[in-house]
């Protein structure tokens, strides 16, 4: 499949370039926009988990929206990760590597939580008790994986500089 930039990325590139008027500025702004929205969605999912911990019935719903929002940002605006386009082998490698790093971090935290619960008798860590709390935990975990993965990609991707590839040696 021939390589093509995702529509979301092309749109955000055009918009930020118009706003900043320099390819360098556009790259930096679009990068931090993705980072910012990802952080926002991740916070929303974690907030949903905290709400569920404190007994709110809407916690799982908030965590769900946080997860879906993060997924949307990742698929629509994350450079190199999108459906329907031709991501190339290097970008796919980066995408999988970021997922591996993010899921590793979240798995380690979950393992620590389980071990801590099992090892210390009498130390009461929070444990989900209702179905909605389990849902909130699952959504928050998934949101954390994809949110951290998006952040890793933003930090590891080199500058794009759409119209200055030759001059800037990208």
């Amino acid at each position, binding site marked *: *499949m*021939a*390589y093509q930039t995702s529509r979301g990325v092309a749109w955000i590139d055009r918009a930020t370039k118009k706003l900043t008027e320099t390819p360098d500025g556009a790259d930096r702004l679009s990068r931090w926009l993705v980072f910012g929205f990802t952080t926002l969605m991740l916070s929303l999912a974690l907030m949903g988990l905290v709400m569920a911990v404190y007994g709110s019935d809407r916690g799982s719903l908030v965590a769900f929206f946080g997860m879906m929002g993060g997924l949307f940002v990742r698929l629509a605006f994350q450079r*190199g990760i999108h459906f329907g386009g*031709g*991501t*190339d*082998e*290097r*970008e796919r490698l980066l995408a999988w590597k970021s997922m591996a790093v993010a899921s590793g971090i979240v798995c380690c935290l979950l393992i620590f939580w389980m071990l801590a619960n099992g090892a210390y008798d009498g130390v009461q860590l929070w444990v989900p008790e209702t179905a909605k709390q389990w849902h909130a935990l699952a959504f928050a975990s998934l949101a954390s994986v994809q949110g951290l993965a998006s952040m890793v990609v933003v930090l590891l991707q*080199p500058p*794009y500089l759409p119209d200055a*590839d*030759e001059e800037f*040696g*990208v």
Partner: protein
Amino acid sequence: MSRVVHNRIAIFRADAGLSRRELAEVVGVNPQTIGFLERGDYKPSLELALAIAEHFGVAVEQIFSFEAFPSLSQQLNMRS
């Protein structure tokens, strides 16, 4: 084991008068990936290496090698 893979994509590309973007379109990758390859920051898959060699009409070992390629001036001095 990780060995350095040298390449002379930049020379072939300049010889053919292609920009990175044009070469990237031909072989179906992001223009950034061509820059990564030229700088030696990324090792291509066999498929991509063969696609690049096919485009320039040469064998893949003419472009990629474990040994460093001699510079153009060294090659000219060897001939003269």
